[in-house]
């Protein structure tokens, strides 16, 4: 049932970590401008 679950979780973490970091950086910039 849990075949290849680690690959799905890895893809999930990579995608949403990158997008979250992008939002944090840009919202910070927006507040400083």
């Amino acid at each position, binding site marked *: 049932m849990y075949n290849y679950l680690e*690959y799905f979780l890895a893809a999930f973490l990579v995608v949403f970590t990158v997008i979250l970091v992008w939002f944090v950086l840009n919202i910070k910039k927006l507040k400083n401008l």
Partner: protein
Amino acid sequence: MNLSLFILSIIIMVCNLVWITFLTPMVPDQEWAQKIFYLHVPLAWSGFLSYFFVMLSGLGYLFSRNLQYDRIGHAAAEIGTIFTGLVLLTGPIWATPIWGKPWIWEPRLITTLILFVIYAGYFILRNVGIYRQRVALISAIIGIIAFLDIPIIFTSVNFWAAEIQSHPQMGMSKQPSGILSPFLFSLFAFTNLMFTMLFLKMKVLYLEDKEKNYV
């Protein structure tokens, strides 16, 4: 940025992730690895759509010399490159268990990598420090030329001999039932996310230009 659009994007994406994780059917042989495609393909679609806006705003800048078009192009290029980068990361994560190796030098992968490298060059150029209007002009030209790679990526599976390709053709009709609806919803969710990011970035770039007295 429009706060309501931001909140709406979060709600849509959370629904999308719950649907993908808990409610989509398992595909025999690939199991959880197949679910990566609900992220991988919508990221590719949104990234290419973003690059389409780079091309359109490049044309807009060439005809009008209005820096507003340059800001749209810059924002769209950044988002397109992030999404294409994520496509190039999630692809190998899927391929490792399914193909047995993360990367194959196959037409669609190579043309996508070329697109990413072209835009890496685009951002290097934007930061070399020449004056604003010249950066905007050269970026517009690169954005238009780089977009030519996208039809090549789409048709790359037809350009080269079938035996050198191991790329899935994404024939959705051949997929088990129950996959199409969450896939389409994921396309919508990532497109919506792309627009939210685009509006936020455009606002940031506008304020940066204003601070430097370009607006």
